[in-house]
């Protein structure tokens, strides 16, 4: 899987996604409206991945756990309680840059 160009097809047909907390994986999954369980890698130094997972969890958009609690999470999960994830707005960025360069 490591070298597959896009997981879009696999994502589309999935009923549940269990993923590491990489931004790309989380965002792609949430944007397709798929329920997501984020698994944190305890061993990666500084573990900033945790910040996004925690925030998404605070917003009620994902479930999260680490490798050792995954089974327990799967057993007790309630996917219907997950909230939809509003999309980001790159147009705001474009608008901001346009103002910086006097292009508006």
């Amino acid at each position, binding site marked *: 899987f490591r070298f597959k160009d896009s997981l879009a097809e696999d994502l589309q047909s999935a009923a549940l996604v269990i993923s590491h*907390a990489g*931004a790309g994986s989380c*965002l792609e999954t949430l944007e397709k409206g798929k329920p997501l369980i984020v698994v944190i890698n305890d061993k990666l130094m500084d573990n*900033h*991945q945790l*910040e996004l997972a925690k925030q998404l969890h605070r917003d009620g958009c994902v479930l999260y756990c680490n490798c050792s609690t995954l089974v327990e999470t799967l057993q007790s999960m309630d996917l219907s309680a997950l909230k939809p994830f509003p999309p980001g*707005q*790159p147009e*705001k960025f474009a608008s901001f*840059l346009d103002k910086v360069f006097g292009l508006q």
Partner: protein
Amino acid sequence: TGGHTTEILRLLSCLSESYSPRHYVLADSDKMSEAKIRSFEQKRAETFSESQFSLDRIPRSREVRQSWVSSVLTTLYSILYSLPLTYKRKPDLILCNGPGTCVPVCLSAFLLGLLRIKRTIIVYVESICRVETLSLSGKILYYFSDYFIVQWPDLKKKYPKSVYLGRLV
């Protein structure tokens, strides 16, 4: 690298053709970003036929978990390597979002600005992954960028000179 590339391509998605030609700078060890970039640019060329872009590679300034001391040395090496590239391209705008690769490129542009060779506007957008703390690149470039954009309100509070536009990607 991977996540950063996906994010930055999303940031680029709404830009007009005024932001052209686009010069992408990648770490030499990055295997996956090139395909994503080419795919993005190919799609873009369907709408904007005059669209132009290029790809350059520089030595990776820091590996994950690399020690502090050796990171300073490898970053210095990357800055020296980036100088001729930045000098050649003389960009009006540098857009980056946090991989180690961006630090030497931005610092080399900053240097060229100090030397009055080319004044480049440096816009840094911290990754959406960064909710409460800045990345190391962010901590450095907070002081060297013209506009430092964060995507979560906590960071705006901690770094008052930053710009908060909400979630962008």
